[in-house]
């Protein structure tokens, strides 16, 4: 199986563990990732906030590069890039004038046929049976809380993926790895997202709520599918402890890292040694 790949800027730097573990997992699942040649930034939240046309054009430029490389589908692990490319494609399809304008700006035509996939959608396409068949090291006894964040699910009118209030697609993948999936009400609550630097206290409050709840539920780890959720939850535990008058230290891991553990890859190959709150101790349970 071959699929296009758009890692996005964060996965090259702060989210490199997400990038490497995704590639490892795909290798194990016999999926060949074909990176979109010469991809650029999707504009992310700053373009979306400050300039609608720029935001649509930057995303469309990457869609056009994918089409030019004859890709049929493209896996985008970063939920923001995923939603931005998907949404840009919809905006252009719905508005002929916008299409002409954007095609002029990006110097390329757009057919709009490229199928944009988020990580969970892609994994379900591969199939739970295949995901399970590769497990050599089941995660039995590991209590995890799946955290989906926002951009993968919401708004439902853009993503049309899973249930935006009570999603279950990640739960199913984790169960197929043998982990004990706990339930909670914060699956799709916001972590504070791009306010990390400019309004850190807001991020501490929002991410802190999640951390507090996860600790109270007795989870060994929170599992994420977004590098920004990861950064906020992993980096702000000290401040959150202060704010909520407790001492929190709960590991935050990527779903692809846990898949990699179940598939027998080393902690180092999966970047599990890179997090501020080290997950290596709780993972001894299943190693």
């Amino acid at each position, binding site marked *: 199986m071959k699929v296009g790949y758009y890692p996005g*800027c*964060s996965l*090259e*730097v*702060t989210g*490199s*563990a997400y990038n490497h573990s995704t590639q490892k997992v795909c290798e194990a699942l016999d999926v060949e990732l074909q990176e979109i040649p*010469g991809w*650029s*930034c999707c*504009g*992310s*939240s*700053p*373009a*979306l*906030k*400050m*300039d*609608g*046309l*720029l*935001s649509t*054009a*930057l995303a469309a*430029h990457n869609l056009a590069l994918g089409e030019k490389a004859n890709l049929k589908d493209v896996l985008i692990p970063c939920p923001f890039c995923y*939603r931005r490319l998907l949404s840009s494609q919809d905006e252009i399809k719905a508005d002929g004038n916008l299409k002409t*304008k954007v095609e*002029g*700006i*990006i*110097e390329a035509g757009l057919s709009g046929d490229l199928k944009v996939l988020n990580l969970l959608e892609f994994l379900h396409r591969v199939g739970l049976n295949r995901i399970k068949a590769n497990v050599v090291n089941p995660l039995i006894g590991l209590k995890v809380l799946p955290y989906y964040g*926002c*951009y993968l*699910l*919401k*708004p439902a*009118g*853009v993503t049309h993926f899973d249930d*935006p*209030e009570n999603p279950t697609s990640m739960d199913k993948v984790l169960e197929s790895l043998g982990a004990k999936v706990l339930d909670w009400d914060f699956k*799709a*609550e*916001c972590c*504070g*997202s*791009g*306010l990390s*630097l*400019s*309004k*850190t206290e*807001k991020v501490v409050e*929002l991410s802190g709520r999640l951390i507090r709840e996860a600790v109270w539920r007795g989870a060994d780890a929170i599992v994420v599918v977004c590098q920004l959720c990861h950064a906020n939850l992993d*980096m702000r535990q000290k401040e959150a402890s202060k704010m909520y008058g407790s001492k929190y230290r709960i590991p935050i891991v990527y779903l692809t890292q846990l898949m990699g553990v179940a598939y027998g890859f080393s902690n180092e190959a999966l*970047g599990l*040694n*890179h*997090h*501020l709150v080290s997950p290596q101790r709780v993972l001894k349970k299943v190693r």
Partner: protein
Amino acid sequence: MVRRTGQPEEREFLSRVIRESGQNLLECLQCGKCSGGCPITSEEVGGPRRMIAEILAGMKQEALEDPTWWYCVSCGTCATRCPVEINVYKVATVLCEMAEKEKVAASEPGIHRFEALFLKSVRNNGRVRELQTAMAYNIRSWKPLKDAGKGMMLMIKGAISPMNMLPTGGKEDAMVSRIFNRVEQEKDGE
């Protein structure tokens, strides 16, 4: 809240927001489900319901100075729960563009600074240079050592490379610069 007086300029502002965002604010029921689920609504930040009320009431100045749309992280919760499917982050984009055009000072200069630096990095390099942008932001906010300890720790663990912080090493993506230039020209032509 001020009632609408029916002045043409009030109407003009409302219809412009509706036209440019594609969101029919006239359908808003003021039910408050948006602000109820909104992660950034607080005592200081009024939230989407109030922001829409300002637009409906023709309170242009208040709407353009409302911190809500600066704080908005486009999580999409309001759009998912809204009974008439109004997407507030699309309204945020329009208010931001309008405020910039009319030179209304940013009510949240910190958020504005970060977003402008981010786009500058994309314009210069095709891809955003995250760590460089974060450092530039902290320096310009007079907090050069904010999160330095965490950055150091991540570097020791090998999660990030010091190379990514250097101001050099970026490469221009000619196509991306052209996209920025053309979008700017489009706007000037309006």
